[in-house]
């Protein structure tokens, strides 16, 4: 396993993701979730939770009614992963950490 987005999406129950940096936002979420007006909310969330500390490790888990949002933070990059309740959250968290670290590494290059 290389710790890529593909690895993340291969985990059972993972529906999609949002990667936000200080300049860009990449949203890959199935159309059944209404995301038309959520960009501003994601941006506000980004402003509230990004931090200077670079090391990947901080994870926020938001339990919603039928989905779960797992937020990975690494410096000025955050990744939100949307998953169904039955998803293996442990593997998701571990893979997510590797993915966010990979993104930050690529960004630094």
């Amino acid at each position, binding site marked *: *396993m290389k*710790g890529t987005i593909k690895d993340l999406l291969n985990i059972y129950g993972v529906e999609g993701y949002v990667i936000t940096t200080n300049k860009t936002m990449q949203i890959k979420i199935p159309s059944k979730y209404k995301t038309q007006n959520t960009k501003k909310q994601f941006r506000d969330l980004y402003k509230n939770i990004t931090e200077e500390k670079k*090391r*990947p*490790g901080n994870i926020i888990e938001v339990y919603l009614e039928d989905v779960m949002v797992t937020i990975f933070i690494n410096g000025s990059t955050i990744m939100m992963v949307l998953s169904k309740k039955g998803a*293996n*959250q*442990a*593997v998701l*968290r*571990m*893979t997510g*950490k*590797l993915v966010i*670290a990979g993104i930050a590494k690529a960004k630094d290059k």
Partner: protein
Amino acid sequence: MNIDITGDIEKTRCPEIIKILSLGKRTGRLSLDNGGAAGNIFFVDGRVVHANCGPIKGAKAIYEMATWTSGEYAFFVDDAADSATIDMPVDNILSEVADRIRQMDRITSLIPSSEVVYTLDPDIKEKEIALKAIQWRVLAYIDGTKSIADIANILGVALFDIMRIFYTLIKMGIIKEGHQDRTEKGELALSLPETPFIETLVKALTNAMGPISPIIIVETAQELDIDLTTDDVENLASLIEILSSKIPKEDIALEFLKTMTDWLKLEEENI
């Protein structure tokens, strides 16, 4: 065999005896015994030609015995050496001995005796630590049950050298004084079950953090209240996550995380 001089090391230390025998241009064997170890220094016309102390031979054996502060000595006139391992003037030997005694004084201010038992300190302060090969070999034997003297015997290293290594390791903050009796140590070992998961985890964490890893695993599992025999992936993943956060270097932490994620995914597929 003719004994010429005998006495207590407490009253006349080894360097003084060497000086007396050298000035007197004596030939024979000086035998020293501190109760726990014994050795010999051979003289020919006042020159030191050979010394042994357990497995240590040559000048190093003299340096070892020179730091003894108790025991007995005896000089056997005309007792000849079976080999010659030292070819340096007595003054040079004594100068090196004096230097080592000064170092030993500094060491004993921190380490009261070679019988003290040390354990690895999990609360390491430095982010990165570089060790020499001999320091690593010593570290591998520090387990809370073996004393400094035990480890010196196992490795066949002079006590002075081993004390100096312990002094450095203490100063680095990676070991601490702490007697862990054998029962406690036994419990610690028992609490690491022999499962494929634990086997992989110990191997991966040892690659990342060294021989301290089993202790860290047990302590972290206790902190998180996780039973190490559990099959629950959520619990195992939490343990892995916390362990990875304890690895000081980020790239090594990610490598550890990757290894363990692969293992968990494989297990999940097998189920």
